């Protein structure tokens, strides 16, 4: 997902406090920043929300790539609005993480020096305009699968950020599908581009949910704390079940020969993605990892003088006011 393979941190807190905390969560209460919380809960959430935020920010890059080359002014305005939303979503999430005692700049530094990750999906290139369709349809579609249940997560600021994000995000998936609909109704070349985009993004989209975690202790802890609401496999299955009929509607072929409706299970059977590729990508060896991080580092470095100048200006304006007090 946008937050993949987040390990829950070990907790060494007083057992009585822990039990009382768990009871609050089990009762459906929201945990607020100033409430007592286990150190492991705090640290796991910082890592998870931080990674989620970084994914929104880095996720602007593959789409930003096409803003200046969108085929019409309308498509350009749509894409611009979507990319702007992603900046906003990153900011909501950074703010939620900050309530846990980490600063925005610290989070940014951790992304830039590789201590924190972002979703594997954004390390794939966007080669044609059809990729804007596939990204909106599949990548945002997969993100929504995860984000909708997270609206009920136990940490108040995270849940509230998710509510805002979900409200805004459904337009993202629809605009992607809309692009795909236009492409498949276009020329033979355009249809081929749409199929090619699906071919390249199908398995990376399935990887977004992370490897199977049904036996993972980390996952079990995060689910008990309600900071993870479903297993990776559940969400992946839900995504496949919803997406395959949409591909059929488009007249496109999902690039999986083994894909078949299983009447007994009431679900599609499908092929697992190549997990060695996934581990390779998250460890930094995907097609665009270097390019993405370089772009973020450059933006941060180039913007430093602006941030400093704004603070210097604010200080200067505040000085006479302070002296007058």
């Amino acid at each position, binding site marked *: 997902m946008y937050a993949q393979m987040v390990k829950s941190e070990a907790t060494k807190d007083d057992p009585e406090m822990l039990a009382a905390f768990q009871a609050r969560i089990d009762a459906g209460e929201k945990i*607020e920043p*100033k*409430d*007592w919380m286990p150190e492991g809960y705090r640290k796991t959430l910082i890592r998870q929300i931080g990674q989620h935020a970084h994914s929104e920010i880095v996720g602007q890059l593959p789409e930003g790539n096409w803003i200046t080359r969108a085929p019409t002014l309308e498509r350009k305005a749509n894409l611009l*609005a979507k990319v*702007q*939303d992603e900046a*906003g979503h990153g*900011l*909501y999430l950074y*703010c939620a993480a*900050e309530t846990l005692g980490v*600063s*925005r*700049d610290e989070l940014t*530094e951790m992304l830039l020096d590789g201590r924190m990750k972002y979703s594997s999906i954004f390390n794939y290139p966007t080669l044609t305009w059809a990729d804007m369709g596939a990204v909106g349809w599949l990548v945002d579609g997969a993100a929504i699968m995860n984000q909708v249940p997270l609206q009920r997560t136990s940490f108040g600021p995270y849940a*509230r*950020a998710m509510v*805002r994000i979900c409200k*805004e995000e459904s337009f993202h998936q629809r605009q992607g599908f809309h692009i795909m609909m236009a492409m498949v109704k276009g020329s033979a070349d355009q249809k081929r581009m749409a199929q090619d985009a699906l071919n390249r993004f199908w398995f990376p989209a399935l990887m977004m949910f992370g490897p199977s975690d049904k036996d993972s202790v980390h996952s079990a802890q995060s689910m008990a704390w309600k900071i993870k609401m479903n297993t990776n496999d559940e969400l992946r299955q839900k995504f496949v079940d919803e997406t395959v009929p949409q591909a059929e509607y488009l007249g496109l072929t999902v690039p999986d020969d083994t894909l078949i409706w299983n009447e007994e299970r009431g679900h599609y059977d499908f092929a697992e993605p190549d997990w060695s590729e996934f581990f390779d990508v998250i460890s930094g060896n995907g097609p665009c990892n270097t390019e993405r991080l370089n772009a973020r580092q450059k933006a941060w470095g180039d913007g*430093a003088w602006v*941030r*400093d100048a*704004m*603070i210097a*200006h*604010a200080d200067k*304006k*505040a000085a006479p006011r302070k002296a007058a007090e």
Partner: protein
Amino acid sequence: MSREWPLWEVFIRGQHGMSHRHVGSLHAADAEHAVKNARDVYTRRNEGISIWVVEATQITASSPTEKGPMYDPARDKVYRHPTFYPIPDDVGKM
């Protein structure tokens, strides 16, 4: 690392006649900058007609550990609600 922009809490009036409501926070160098950022971050879809920003350090909050002494005393004062006083139906609407 340069000094970080301070954190601001953002309050938005959604429509005429409603009160301002907390919607989130953001970083900005000063108040004017915070209002501009709040406009971009929190009102992209006509969510507001008025914005307040307050530097987060200026907010004093009650502590969750004082929840008991702060709010429990109100619990047993049901006579502060109109339903505590039964009025016969014959009297009509009151």
